[in-house]
Structure formats: structure tokens, C-alpha cells
């Protein structure tokens, strides 16, 4: 397992020309504006073909609801939150939902792009000043906060900020501003993890 060596500030950072974080393994990342146009066209295709936007957290919710139902069926079905996800899939299958299949696609597309670029290998992504155990503890805690937050917000960066943002949805823009505000407010306290 390689640790913290695959990404680092580029050489040019030390020369003061730029500070972009470049890939240390495989090919360089795509120009952000080109990648943004690509993502925007994917989102537009979702609007045009499906009449809906992209998403991610919903797929994790379906998986969670299904797991709860497997362990405690009556408990899950008595709760409207789990029930919503359990019944939203096709033919009564919780995992036969649009977002679950979309996220499976994300997994494959990410793997394909990483393979093309030579960027696949087991690693822990972190700054130089934190231990692996520390980083993994933060990763779990961050995921936990994100899980609760995404459910209050009814979506995450994909479903609300990106999809709702492009449709000028009021709740999505309010949400997006708070995401940046929250992240900048918290950044100082976890800086040892990244820089």
C-alpha cells in the first residue's frame, strides 16, 4: 500500500507559478474547465433523456434501508424514512432504483477513467502530517456527518448543488452556500489532515 505519495503539490508550486494538486501516478488530470463542460453535458443529458438530475446519496440510502429491513423487517417498515426507499424501487426491490444503477455506473466510469490514466492502486489519501489510523477515523466521522446532512438537505453535492443548481432551485442554492460556509468554517480545525 502506498501512502500519501501519490498526490502532492506540483513542482511548479515550489516555484510559485501555480499551486494545483497534480497526480503523481499516471497521467495528469484533465483541465478543470473541460471536465466541467463534460459533467455539465452529462447532467444535461440526464435532464433531456430522463427529466431528472444526477445523484449519489440516495443510492446509499436505499442500501441502508435494505440492510435495516434485512435485520429488523418490522422496525424498518414502521419507519416512513426507510419505507420510502424500500418502496421506491421497481417491482418492490429496494435496489432496483434509478440512483442505485446510476451509482453503479459511477463506480464503473471512475474505474475505467482511472485505469486509462494509470491511477488505480490501493492507497490512503491524506496530507503528510497525519497517521493512516487518524485519517481513517476522520474519514468515518466525515462520512457520518455527511450522511446526516445529506438526508436533512434531501440530497448531496450531486443531487442538490449540481442538479438543483442548474435548475435555479431555491433550496439547492441555499444548500450550496451553506456547504461552502460549513466547509470553510471547519477547514482550519482539520488542517493537519490535509496540509
Amino acid at each position, binding site marked *: 500500500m502506498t501512502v500519501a505519495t501519490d498526490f502532492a503539490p506540483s513542482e511548479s508550486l515550489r516555484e510559485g507559478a501555480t499551486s494545483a494538486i497534480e497526480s503523481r501516478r499516471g497521467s495528469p488530470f484533465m483541465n478543470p*474547465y473541460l471536465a466541467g463542460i463534460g459533467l455539465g453535458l452529462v447532467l444535461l443529458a440526464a435532464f*433531456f433523456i430522463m427529466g431528472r438530475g444526477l445523484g449519489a446519496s440516495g443510492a446509499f440510502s436505499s442500501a441502508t434501508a435494505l440492510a435495516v429491513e434485512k435485520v429488523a423487517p418490522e422496525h424498518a417498515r414502521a419507519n416512513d424514512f426507510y419505507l420510502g426507499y424500500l418502496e421506491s424501487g421497481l417491482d418492490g426491490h429496494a435496489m432496483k432504483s434509478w440512483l442505485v444503477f446510476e451509482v453503479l455506473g459511477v463506480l464503473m466510469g471512475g474505474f475505467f477513467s482511472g485505469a486509462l490514466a494509470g491511477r488505480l*492502486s490501493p492507497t490512503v489519501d491524506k*496530507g503528510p502530517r497525519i497517521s493512516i489510523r487518524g485519517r481513517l477515523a476522520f474519514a468515518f466521522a466525515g462520512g457520518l456527518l455527511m450522511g446526516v446532512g445529506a438526508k*436533512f438537505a434531501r440530497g448531496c453535492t450531486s443531487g*442538490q448543488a449540481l442538479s438543483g*443548481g442548474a435548475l435555479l432551485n*431555491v433550496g439547492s442554492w*441555499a444548500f450550496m452556500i451553506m456547504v461552502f460556509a460549513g466547509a470553510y468554517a471547519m477547514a482550519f480545525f482539520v488542517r493537519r489532515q490535509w496540509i
Partner: protein
Amino acid sequence: MMAPFFKYDLFGDEFSLIVAVLIGFAFGFFLERAGFGSARKLTAQFYLTDLAVFKVMFTAIVTAMLGAFYLSWMGFLDLSLVYLSTTYLAPQLLGGVLLGFGFVVGGYCPGTSVVGMATGRVDALVYGAGLIAGIFAFGEAYPYMEGFVYSTDMGAITLPQLFGVPYGLVMLVIVLIALLGFWAAPSIERYFGNRLTEEV
């Protein structure tokens, strides 16, 4: 007018799942291309040393926003059939703050964590476990806070409707904000990048 195709019954539910995989594939592809499988690349946004998150996100929003508007204006797409989620202001503001905390603490958002997992990042996998734990915690607490979760219901509403201004004006403001950010980004990255190298 014949789009959104799915809403005009050009294909059924089963086929929509194949579309889901294809759209997801392209989504994951571009996220990885941008470097968003890396937590360090993503969180650099919040230390202002690499503003790729802002650049990619706002380019994508502007592209899809203008694309949807013009396709609708030319009569190809019925924008009223594109799903607009209901705004529940208070829970969405709270959710946004928690998500922002989670982003910089965990290093990913749900979508990018999937790309992180796909490219071998153990921390993304642990993050995903945390995500499921968080959703479970929310689910267990849900019966006690259902009132708050559905509070401040504003309906499905857009910024132009809220402010009573033309759609085009709001689009113009968003494009200008994006362009201002793109214009300022290199100087910001240089300034904070240099400060950081001096500190470390």
C-alpha cells in the same frame, strides 16, 4: 417538443435503469478525469490552494443551466417536466452546514467517494461506511424529528420565481459569478499556495 424522453414514455422503467448506468458511467468518468477521486485534490478547495472544485462545479452548472434553458427555448425540451425538488429551507440550510463539515473532515462527498473507492482509496471506503452509519442514525432519529424535516416548505420554487425577476437575469448573475471566480482563481491559488509552502 419530445423531451424529456422518459416523461414522454419513449421507453419504460426497465430501460431507464440501463440509461442510469450509462449516465452514471459518464458522470464517474468525468469526476475521475478531473481528479475528484482524490480527497486531497477536493479539500484543497477549502485551503484555497487548488480551486478545481469551484471551477469544475460552476462550469458544469453553467453548461447544464444554459443548455437546458436554450433547449427549452427552442422547443426541444419541456423544462416543466424536469423534476424540481421541493425546497424545505430550514432543514436544507442545516443539512448544508453538516455536509460542509463532513466534506472537509471526511475528504469526499458521496459521489466522489464512489470514484475514490473505484480507484483504490481505502479512506473512501471507510468514508462510505461512515456515510451509511450517518444515514442509519438519521433514519433511527427520523420519527422524532419528522416535523422539522418537513418544516419551512416553500414548494418547488426557482430563484427567478422567488425574486420575481426574469430567468435570464438570474442566469446572467450566475454566469458572472462563475466568470469572476475563474478570473480570480489563479491569483488566489498562487497566493495561498505560496503561503502554505512557507508554513510547512
